[in-house]
């Protein structure tokens, strides 16, 4: 364990120590809690910066060591995790800085920062994990910390319900994830990624089995990265404070699923069937989310659906081009993290300034008063919609290029790009331009420095994150890709923005209303019905059967009483009767003994 092996362990354990310190020592004094947490996030950033320069290392501790089962707790610094470290700690530090002001007068601030550090610890655990079991452990810890953070204002019922929903969806995903791990482990005999890479021979003996295992592991990613069937928790997760949404539900936690898929890209490569299914699920998620986003009024909900859509993009990219160095998916994840965090923090600034007003139709004309926020928000929007030259353009182009080989997927990807441009421009125009539609919008003002500085930094990153970084993610360079996908991408950007501008210039209320999208394809109601229909009905039946079983047990007691009652009837009180019965007995006895 030479000294630069200490660094990854330090990065991992530093937030845990901070969380323990805050939750148990600094419970009462909120100020110190905030500063301690932000300082630890800063050290984490510094640590990951110098970890970026280190050669790949892999050190581990034996957590469970039995003859048949070795589960190590290890940290693995390699191409993929060094990059992800930067993203997580970078955005983590900026969000910490931002929330010192945002959560200024929240009465349980120390609890918030404690849980934030706990989240950083679990997220870094996923990034640094060198085996599936450890990744599953931190997978659940991330689920719990997102539960705690979403449910921060637990006195509000909506927050409690949203937190429960998020944890439940993650749990369903983890069910599949664990089953996938079990299947892979029982075949390969080891849970570590290196071990699995070595055991690809045994894994590919039964392709059906491998496809099923990969799809089950992908089920875990679906739960965490909110892919199609398990996505309804992400919009509801907006109940949590905005910094939480920025850090967790934009940049880091939801990206964990994509990161994990990148981690096992060598497996996905082995089973084309699984890759295709993953790609299709990603595509469906992106198009659905984009459609839903066009009709939302709450600024945070629009961004949440946009995240959903971009995640669908990344998962589609992993399905299409699984690349051990990350491929287009990780490239998009890298760029998306920055501008999505920027957009969320911008939205947070707007909400903070307008005293918790989240409906875009109540805003308008904010660019006049909130200069820095609106400029950075515009940069973020352009980056997201794929304006040429900004970060989003390069990563989306890489994905479209990868999708070019599969025409239907390309068409879906293209229409998503168009819709992204449409709803983001709609958001910007309605919220920031035109005349103020509410009194609060009138005297909105820029937020204090610790909130605007992260916005500026992120804006810079959103601009230059795409330049010349593509090669980092590609293990093999496409010789000469055709330029058509790039041109089509630019058309999509222009058509989308133009359409949104013409439709929403100077409008006061939503011109076109499509109830199907507004109510999120009624998926929430469908899921509610399914859960109510199956689980609650089954639970009711089970409870009835259980009372039946305990009835059977009581029956045994009743049987004893019944037999007692029968014998009581024999005492009919008449002396003659007794002697008669006695006589009968004697006669029968004599008959039996003598004559039988």
């Amino acid at each position, binding site marked *: 364990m030479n000294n630069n092996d200490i660094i990854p362990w330090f990065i991992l354990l530093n937030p845990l120590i901070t969380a323990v310190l805050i939750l148990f020592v600094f419970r009462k004094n909120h100020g110190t809690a905030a500063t301690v947490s932000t300082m630890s996030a800063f050290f984490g950033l510094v640590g990951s910066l110098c970890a970026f320069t280190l050669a790949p290392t892999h050190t581990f501790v034996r*957590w469970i060591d039995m003859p048949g089962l070795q589960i190590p707790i290890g940290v693995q610094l390699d191409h993929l995790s060094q990059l992800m470290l930067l993203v997580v700690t970078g955005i983590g530090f900026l969000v910490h800085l931002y929330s010192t002001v945002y959560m200024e007068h929240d009465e349980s601030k120390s609890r918030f920062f404690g849980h934030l550090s706990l989240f950083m610890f679990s997220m870094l655990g996923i990034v640094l994990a060198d085996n599936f079991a450890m990744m599953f452990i931190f997978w*659940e810890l991330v689920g719990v910390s997102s539960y705690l953070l979403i449910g921060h204002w637990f006195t509000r019922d909506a927050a409690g319900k949203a937190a*429960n929903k998020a944890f439940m969806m993650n749990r369903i995903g983890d069910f599949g994830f664990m089953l996938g791990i079990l299947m892979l482990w029982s075949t390969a005999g080891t849970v570590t990624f290196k071990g699995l890479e070595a055991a690809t021979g045994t894994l590919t003996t039964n392709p059906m089995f491998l496809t099923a295992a990969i799809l089950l592991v992908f089920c875990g990613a679906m739960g965490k990265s909110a892919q199609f069937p398990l996505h309804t928790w992400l919009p509801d997760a907006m109940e949590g404070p905005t910094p939480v949404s920025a850090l967790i539900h934009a940049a880091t936690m939801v990206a964990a699923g994509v990161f994990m898929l990148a981690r096992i890209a060598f497996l996905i490569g082995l089973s084309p069937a699984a890759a295709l299914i993953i790609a299709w699920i990603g595509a469906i998620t992106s198009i659905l989310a984009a459609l839903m986003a066009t009709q939302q009024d709450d600024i945070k909900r629009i961004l949440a659906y946009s995240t959903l859509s971009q995640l669908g993009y990344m998962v589609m990219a992993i399905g299409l081009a699984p690349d051990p160095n990350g491929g287009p998916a990780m490239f998009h994840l890298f760029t998306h993290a920055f501008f999505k965090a920027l957009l969320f923090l911008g939205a947070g600034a707007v909400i903070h300034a307008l005293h918790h007003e989240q409906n875009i139709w109540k805003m308008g004309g904010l660019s006049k008063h909130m200069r820095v926020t609106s400029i950075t928000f515009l940069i973020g929007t352009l980056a997201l919609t794929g304006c040429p030259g900004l970060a989003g353009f390069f990563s989306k182009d890489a994905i479209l290029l990868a999708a070019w080989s599969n025409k239907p997927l390309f068409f879906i990807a293209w229409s998503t790009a168009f819709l992204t441009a449409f709803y983001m421009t709609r958001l910007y125009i309605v919220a920031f331009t035109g005349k103020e539609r509410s009194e609060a919008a009138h005297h909105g003002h820029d937020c204090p420095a610790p909130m605007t500085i992260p916005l500026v930094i992120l804006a810079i990153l959103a601009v230059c994150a795409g330049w010349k970084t593509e090669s980092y993610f590609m293990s093999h360079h496409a010789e000469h890709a055709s330029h058509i996908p790039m041109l089509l991408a630019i058309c999509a950007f222009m058509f989308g923005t133009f359409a949104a501008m013409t439709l929403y210039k100077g409008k006061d209320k939503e011109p076109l209303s499509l109830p199907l999208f507004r109510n999120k394809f009624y998926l929430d109601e469908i899921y509610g019905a399914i859960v109510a229909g199956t689980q609650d009905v089954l639970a009711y039946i089970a*409870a009835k059967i259980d009372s039946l079983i305990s009835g059977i047990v009581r029956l045994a007691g009743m049987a004893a009483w019944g037999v007692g009652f029968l014998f009581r009837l024999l005492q009919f009180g008449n002396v003659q009767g007794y002697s008669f019965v006695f006589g009968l007995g004697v006669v029968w006895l004599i008959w039996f003994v003598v004559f039988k």
Partner: protein
Amino acid sequence: MTVLNFIVLLPILNAIAIACGAPARKSALLSAWTQLALTIVAMVGYRGGFAYGSTWAVAPEWGLNLTFGVDGLALVMLLLTAIVTVAAVWVTPKIEKRENLFYACVLLISGGAAGAFASVDMFFFYAFHELALIPTFLLIGIWGQGERQVAAWKITIYLAVGSMILLVGLAKLYLAFPEGARTFDMIEMTKARHLIPAAEQGGIYIWLLVGFGVLISLFPFHSWAAPAYAAAPTPAAMLHAGVLKKFGLYGLIRIAVPMLPEGAKVWMNLLLVLLVANILYIGLVTIAQKKLDWMLGYSSVMHMGYIFLGIAAGNAIGITGASLLMLGHGLSIAALFAMCGYLRQTSPSLAFTSLGGIAKKAPFLGYAFGMAAFASIGLPGFANFASEAMVFFGAFKAGPAATLDFSSIQIATVCGLWGVVISAVYMLRAYRQIFQGEPQANVATFKDPACSVKWSVILLLAALMVGGLWPKSMLNFIQPSVEALIGK
């Protein structure tokens, strides 16, 4: 007089002393703490194999001698008993009527459990468990709440019948040995296990399975558990759910698994069906519960399914995982029942509708209950997760690898995994309805528990975290003894 004799006799002698008039709470606390200290001393001084042996010939002509002896697995069980006893005695509120008898019964239960875990002689292994049966009846019947008489009678008669079945099983096992090799000493029996004819093993195994199954509330025999725990006073519920139920499982691991391998194979499918019903069916019943204490009762019945899954796996990983889960589940259910007992002071009915927003009024309780709840649904960082993971790994490994048509045990593992989702559903729903949201009227005057409840819960949670963050601390004890029992 080894340290083990003190661990076992201490609670029993103290119970007698208290019954005869010693100051009840103080001497009970003293006895519990010394029991814990002695157990830790025993664990530190443990060097493998069967240690701290001591025998007293009770009836030599029948080969009955009270032999104590402990291996790693039994030591962990003694640790569990000691910790839960300390927590149970410490958390008890002021008892008005007949305080001495109350504490005497609590210590008798603990003594009975400790005696059962520490005894190597099968006869006294059984006898010590019976010792704990009557105090449970008294505790539930006299100091319980709700319709306690019914519950007390039900649990006592049910467990008595279960013990009868178990006695038949043990007798058949004893007689299955050929004439010369008959002994009550479990160590010799395990050594001479090859003498048991394979044909008879199935017959004996089913008796033991049903007998222990009733004591552990296996699926069809579970209807005594929830009413008893709902009606029991806090320490009785903690000790019975946390410790006494583990006697049955410990018995299965100590007797049924090593000595009757063919028997296990014959009844494997039945056991799997029952444990899957235990997990899924009882899980659904738990979801349907409207009251906290009933829900906790049923959830403890459900978690038995996982331990059975570990035992059904039959390999070293599964059974070690099951043993660690016994420790984890014992501690987490004890913590939950302790806090549930404290909550009962605000709303005796403990119905979800009558409670709400307690976390605002009692932040410590909100946090501690949250941690205990998350521990019991298998959140990493607590012993339950590490052991449940090992149970799943062990059970899945028991089936064929690399094929999609799963064997029966692998299907049971899948159901077990889905059980984890079900347990999350009911536990979090309960947590949200009780602790989150706006505080209700009757919660207005509610405040954090006194330091006795607070520190006993902290003790339980700390033990859980040690087992979770660093499972090797417990596995170093459990693993060698399990491997000695069933081979690698």
